[in-house]
């Protein structure tokens, strides 16, 4: 190790190698954060991740309770176990945050993402795209003689797989919503 080698986990406040004594395996976690829907709340959450050097792999947000002014932010993040615990504690500190749930550890959950993919082509490629879309249960939401827009819902992995297959067939553009997730079973979070 070179003398000036600072581990990736070092915090922005100090050059100390803060996390060296902690486990090194990177885990992916899906967090559901229930917040007061007030101006700036999303900026606070994003600012926390940027300011402290945490990962955001995916983030979705929308108001889910119009009368109670609650929004649900679903964040997919990655880090060592201690970093994940820190992220949750730091989120919990934000004043308009009501609840933080780690869907990855709180039991089984379902995760879904929606994507729109524009595929342009003619002839065999076009037929093949349509055939694969059928297999993936993607639906056609727009069509011209030279293009399709497919709508697909599923896990992020399924959408990745579909996009990979579309690439050689003329994939032009992708729009993805990011992950929405809920715990399985009867219990509620909001």
């Amino acid at each position: 190790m070179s003398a000036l080698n600072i581990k990736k986990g070092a915090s922005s406040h100090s050059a100390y190698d803060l996390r060296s004594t902690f486990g090194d395996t990177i885990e992916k976690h899906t967090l559901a954060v229930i917040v007061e829907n007030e101006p700036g709340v999303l900026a606070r959450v994003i600012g926390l991740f940027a300011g402290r050097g945490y990962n955001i792999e995916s983030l979705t947000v929308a108001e889910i309770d119009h009368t109670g002014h609650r929004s649900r932010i679903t964040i997919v993040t990655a880090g060592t176990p201690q970093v994940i615990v820190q992220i949750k504690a730091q989120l919990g500190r934000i004043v308009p945050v009501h609840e933080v749930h780690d869907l990855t550890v709180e039991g089984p959950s379902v995760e879904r993402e929606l994507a729109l993919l524009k595929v342009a082509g003619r002839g065999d490629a076009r037929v093949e795209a349509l055939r694969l879309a059928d297999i993936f249960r993607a639906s056609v939401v727009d069509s011209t003689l030279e293009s399709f827009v497919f709508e697909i819902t599923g896990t992020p992995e399924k959408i990745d797989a579909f996009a990979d297959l579309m690439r050689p067939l003329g994939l032009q553009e992708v729009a993805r919503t990011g992950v929405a997730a809920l715990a399985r079973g009867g219990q509620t979070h909001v």
Partner: protein
Amino acid sequence: MTKTMTGAKMVVQALIDQGVEVVFGYPGGAVLPIYDEIFQQNSIQHVLVRHEQGAVHAAEGYARSTGKPGVALVTSGPGATNAVTGLTDALMDSIPIIVLTGQVPTFMIGTDAFQEADTVGITRACTKHNWLVKDTDKLANTIHEAFHVALSGRPGPVLIDIPKDVQFATGTYSEKAKRKSHYAPQVKGDIDMITELAEAMAKAKRPVFYTGGGVINSGTAASQLLRELVEATGFPITSTLMGLGCYPASGPAWLGMLGMHGTYEANMTMHGCDLMINIGARFDDRITGRIDAFSPKSVKAHIDIDASSINKVIRVDIPILGDVAHVLEALLKVWKAQGRKTDKEAVAKWWKQINEWRATDCLGFTQDGPIIRPQYALSRLEALTKDHDRYITTEVGQHQMWAAQYLGFEDPNRWMTSGGLGTMGYGTPASIGVQMAHRDALVINVAGEASWLMNMQEMGTAMQYRLPVKQFILNNERLGMVRQWQQLLHGERYSQSWSEALPDFVKLAEAFGAKGIRCDNPDDLDEAIKEMIAYDGPVIFDCLVEKHENCFPMIPSGKAHNEMLLKNAQVQGSITATGAVLV
């Protein structure tokens, strides 16, 4: 009863309802309606500072010396941006302050209007929470909520940005605490964990209490309970820079401050303990030194009100989330109810070891020669002021560490220093805030000449409000702490660490209308300090000290507690390249 009034009047009314007596501020276009209301009332005293940074530090000093929130009022744009350093300082040290900023009218927000700044955007990262109020009907409630947020859980600074049209408009005033806030951090600790800690304490052979600013923030009851606990157990106790005064410096179990410039005995005790009980401290890097060599053999308990402080840097075995006073009360109850006893024999043996470390007398010095040593200056200041009703603020640098080492604090809320942010320029305005709260007390700002120049304009404030603050400047004509690091780390290349072209501090004092005293002779020092104390008004005391004194003990960057340097002779080659990147 509902009352209708203008937003500007609401601001003043809400502050009165919150029990605010003093506001530190500076006017400008975007807060004129509020200043107009301030003009027309007598309940709240407004202190006109000379720079908005001064207003925020003064509010901090007021808050830290009283346990009550401090309030500052500044205008939009430059007023708000000048407040940023103070807000960050208060955030790092968990000080409850409320900063009110004016803003351009709502219909001009986003147009780059004159003196417009995105204040809530700029201060989002340096406040505990902030609000932009766009509706006069919501203003009073927001102010009440702001006080609640600033004071609840881990305290901190909050900011309310109030557009000028909202100040002019009329709305309904809502009384304090009409709506229940959802923000309610947990204060009671988990009783199973507390019992586990009591068990560990009964078994401990080499225990130590490691206390911090959380004890002070928890209120005077917390310090009282801590003293009971130390008495009941006979365990040694140390504290961070932020926690000084939570246990009396004259107490038998006191080891002195720990950390980078802490005492030998405190750091060795931390290194060798088998049970570390962290009460309201946060394993800051000034304390831990090298993480992987930090107190390697101890079981660690951590009492903290902020869940994110627990397991952030150091993994602990007994985490207790809660307010210090609540947890200590429960811990004492459990300790007594279960008839717990310490391992007297083992603890006595531990004390024997600690006393051997103490015998190194790591803060010992001799005042020889004609030049005042800074340690001597502070020892004399301590001797001549300790029996007074005394409050100390500091600037940042070597003098700050010497003040922590050589002044003794018997009670909480008597020591105001910028810990987390290390803000040069903190001490003078903070001393003004303290003196506003304690008009008859002896308030001394222990300063370095460089730091002192950073907010010296506040001498004008001290004069205007007849605040007899004593500015005790340890003048080494150097950015001493920077010079020390350059000596240790950068081959004695003293890049820009000289205080050149210094003003004549005595003449400067006189220019402000204050008293100036200069002392450069150890034999004259006592008389000069007595003259300072006796003078009924602000004093600038220019104490000319040894220019090249280093602050010891010192744990060099990247080293462990047991690798402490005690004096200059040990310095050569003590810091490696790895250590040099650390701040």
